[in-house]
Every structure is written in C-alpha cells, then in structure tokens.
C-alpha cells in the first residue's frame, strides 16, 4: 500500500520517501505523521532532526502534545525538548523540567517561552534570585525574537511573552511585599498591551496595600469605561467595596455591594445554568467562540465579553491557526490528489482536526467555568464586607458617635501621586488618554465625634 501511495504522490520524484514528497507538496501535517512512521525505528541522524524542526516550524507543536513520551525523547530537537520540559513542569517534576528547558537552543523560536517557564520553576522552588534573572533573560530574548519575526501574529506572540515576564517580575515584588517596586514594574507595561486591562486590578491591589485607597478606587473606575466593557472581574467590585470601607465611606461601600447583588449576581446564576446544561458537550464551547456578536448578545452580554477575552489569547490563535491550516491541506488534497491518496491522508487529518477542536472546546470550557467559580468566593467576601459595614454603623450608634466628615466631593489635596504618575484635571484632553491614571480625592471619614445631644 505504501509503495502505491508513494507512486501516486511522487510521480515526478522517485528516490524520495513519502514524507519527503508530502513535504515537497506542502502537505506538512500529513508529512509529519509519515515522518514519524518512517524514522521511528531507524537511527536518528542530524538531518532527521533538522527535518523534524522544519516540519514543526510549519505545523507548530500543538499536534505533538498528545504524543508518547518515548517517541518524543527519541528526537533530540529543541521543540521536542520544550514539549517534554512543559510536561515535567505540569507534573511538578521541577528538576527534570529545568534540565529539559536548559536543552532548548538559545536561537530557537521557543527559547523565550522556555526562559519564562524556567523562571516560573525557580519561583515555585522559592529561588527568587534565579527567578528574576530568568525573567530578565526572557524579556531580552523575546525582544530579540520579536525584532526578527516577520508576521504580525508572531510579533504579537513574542510581545506577549515579554509582557508576561515583566508582569511576573512585578507580581514577584508584590508577593515579597515590595509594593512600590512592583508598581514601578507594572508602570512599564504600555496601555496598548493586551495585558494592560488585566494588570489594572493588580496595580489597584498594590495601591490598596500601600494605603492609597483613592488611587486604588481610581484605577478600578477604569473598568467602567466603554473601552473596557469586556473586562469584568468580581474581584474588582470586591476591592472597590473594600477600599470605600477602609475610607469609612460606608454608604459608598454598600452601594457597590447592592449593585453587585442586584445586577451581576442574578446574571451570573442565569449564565451558569445555561452553560452547565452543555458541560459535557464536545463542541458547544468551541461553537460559542464562532458565534457572531449579535448571536451572543441574544443569550447574555457576559458570554460575549468572556468569548471576546478568550479569543485574544495566544493559545486560541495558535490552535485555531492549526485548524485553519489543516482545513486548507484537506481541501488541497481533495482537489489535487487521487482517490487512494485522499483516503489515506484525509481521514488522519480529520482526526487531527477533531482533536484540536476538542482542545479548544476544553480550554474555553475550563476558562469560562474558572471565571464562574470565582464568583461565589467574591460574593461571599462582599457579604462579609456588608456585615462589617453594618457592625461599624451599629458601633457608632451604641457609642453615641458619628463620623467626623460627611461624604462630599473629593479634593485635590487628598490625591497622592508619585513623580511618574500623571495628574490630569480633565481640561481639554481626550478622555481615553486618562484611562488607568485616575485617582479619587476622597477624604477618609474614619475619625469620629460624639453625637450632639448624646448622654442628655
């Protein structure tokens, strides 16, 4: 059968293997499968390794995620070592993971990502110095690869790696309690970045920890902008209520809590009911990703927002790109090859495509349910803030005291800022420029005075 296929496929090029001929015709996905079948039981030479790298350059490594460990071990390429290292990392076998990440060549396209994960391994082992060093190396390597890359999507991938390494540095500083230093690191991420909407919340936490509740509230207000309406985090609502609570602005805190309970919570419950019905579906979440915005709006605005966020992930771009390329290969084989070749390759390609669809479906499902599972936690924390507010208000009544300052508009005198933070007065500027630079100027209301007429 093989010789017949070879004959059909390579009528013009005898003396070459089937995988070589498939590669020549740019059927990379079919060639990859044949390549493994041809070379697995043979001695692996330098040329074999180079060919595999070349094929993987076109197909990506996503296909190899499910391949046997022993098979991948046989081919000492940077790509296969990278996959194996990731597996060790996921299994928390950190020593092995470090060994394999270290084998990824520094000129290889996965080198920046390998450095990012190496830093993460050191972080998990509490080796902070090595972690920071690897994040810095990762930034340099990602910038270098970004400069070399041609396509916009590849450039974006390396930019994403660069920004994750920078953000993780800031997160490490936050974990160590170095909040000011972490804010300096966060400040290096430009507003055009894909990560920027996410780090607003993290910056707000850092300001909160420094006791600058006004700046934390100002940052969280950014999420109310129409430009960021796809970014909704229950944690941001919680932090808003908490910051008002720390300023003893109890009424404001209660407004945030009530709004959350009245507006968001019922919608979460409704959304969860719809999604749970399809939890075992193999393609519901995949299909969700390809619905038009109008179709999504019919079900719930939240779904649209979550799906938009998921589509911006690098993982989705890579997987979807693979599906698109497999589809193209199937079409070309059906159009250009004889029936026997079609039967031999299209079936395999269809199963590879199905695997990719299952993967996207699973990832989308995990992300959506991960988001939904964060809701009960923050609902319960908001409830605790509510109880604390009521308790404090009751204390004031029992002790015949009242808050010194009544709630009023903020004042510039209450705004703290570092020399790197802009100070806009909203006079003549474009409103979009100020996103992420807001600060409220509310005065803390925590001082109390004895209520007039008390004790008479």
């Amino acid at each position, binding site marked *: 059968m093989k010789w017949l296929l070879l004959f059909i496929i390579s009528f013009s090029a005898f003396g070459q293997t089937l995988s070589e001929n498939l590669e020549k015709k740019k059927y990379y996905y079919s060639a990859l499968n044949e390549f493994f079948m041809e070379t697995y039981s043979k001695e692996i030479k330098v040329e074999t390794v180079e060919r595999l790298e070349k094929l993987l350059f076109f197909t990506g490594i996503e296909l190899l995620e499910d391949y046997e460990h022993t098979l991948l071990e046989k081919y000492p390429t940077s790509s296969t070592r990278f996959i194996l290292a990731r597996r060790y990392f996921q299994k928390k076998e950190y020593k092995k993971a470090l060994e394999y990440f270290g084998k990824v060549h520094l000129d290889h396209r996965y080198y920046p990502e390998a450095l990012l994960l190496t830093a993460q391994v050191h972080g998990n082992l509490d080796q902070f110095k090595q972690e920071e060093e690897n994040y810095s190396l990762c930034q340099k390597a990602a910038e270098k690869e970004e400069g070399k890359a041609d396509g916009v999507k590849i450039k974006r991938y390396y930019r*994403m790696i660069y920004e*994750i390494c920078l953000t*993780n540095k800031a*997160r490490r500083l936050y*974990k160590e309690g170095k909040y000011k230093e972490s804010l300096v690191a966060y400040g290096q991420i430009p507003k055009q970045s894909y990560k920027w909407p996410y780090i607003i919340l993290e910056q707000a936490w850092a300001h909160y920890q420094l006791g600058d509740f006004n700046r934390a509230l100002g940052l969280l207000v950014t999420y109310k902008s129409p430009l960021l309406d796809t970014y909704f985090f229950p944690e941001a609502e*919680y932090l808003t209520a*908490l910051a008002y609570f720390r300023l003893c602005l109890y009424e404001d805190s209660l407004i945030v809590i009530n709004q959350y309970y009245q507006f968001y919570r019922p919608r979460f419950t409704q959304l969860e009911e719809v999604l749970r019905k399809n939890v075992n579906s193999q393609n519901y979440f995949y299909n969700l990703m390809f619905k038009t915005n109008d179709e999504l709006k019919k079900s719930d605005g939240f779904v649209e927002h979550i799906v938009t966020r998921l589509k911006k992930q690098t993982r989705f771009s890579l997987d979807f790109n693979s599906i698109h390329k497999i589809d193209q290969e199937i079409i070309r084989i059906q159009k250009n090859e004889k029936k026997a070749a079609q039967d031999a390759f299209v079936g395999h390609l269809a199963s590879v495509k199905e695997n990719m669809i299952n993967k996207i479906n699973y990832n989308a499902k995990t992300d959506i349910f991960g988001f939904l599972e964060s809701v009960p936690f923050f609902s319960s924390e908001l409830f*605790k803030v509510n109880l604390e507010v009521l308790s404090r208000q009751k*204390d004031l009544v029992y002790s015949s005291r009242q808050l010194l300052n009544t709630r009023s508009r903020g004042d510039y005198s209450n705004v703290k800022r570092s020399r790197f933070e802009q100070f806009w007065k909203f006079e003549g500027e474009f409103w979009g420029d100020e996103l992420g630079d807001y600060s409220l100027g509310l005065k803390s209301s925590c001082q109390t005075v004895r209520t007039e007429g008390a004790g008479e």
Partner: protein
Amino acid sequence: MKIFAFLVSFYIFGEASGQDQKVIYQYKKYEKFDLGNLEVKGQLIAPGDISVRERDRKRFELDLYSRKDFDTFIKKDIESLR
C-alpha cells in the same frame, strides 16, 4: 458473720419491697401572693447612681480577604500561551 449476712439480706428484701409502693406527688394547683402585704426585712435604701459597671462591647471582626500574591494569575497566563 451469719448475723451480718442475715441483716444485709433483710435490708435488701426491705428495699425491694419498698420499690413496689406507688408514691403520688401532689403540687399546689393555685397559690395566691399578696405582694402588697409582703414584708422585706432589712434596710431600705434608694439607689444613688447606676450601679451597673460599663464595659466595652465585644467586637467580632471578620477577616476580610486581602490578596497576598498573584500566583493563580501567573498560572493562568502560562496556560493561556498554549
């Protein structure tokens, strides 16, 4: 010794036969108190000041969540890559 054994067995027999007797307790069904006529012995004094000592209310503060790290975010970022 025999006398002692005899006395013990006599006592046990007596106790056992006593348990068979039915004891009926009766409580007063109605009792009237004439509070006006009650006399309290001792010195009558009027309280000069509130005699209850003031004490602080016990406050139970809830442990409100404060983020310690962004480890879950780091994990998610890595997963979002591939």
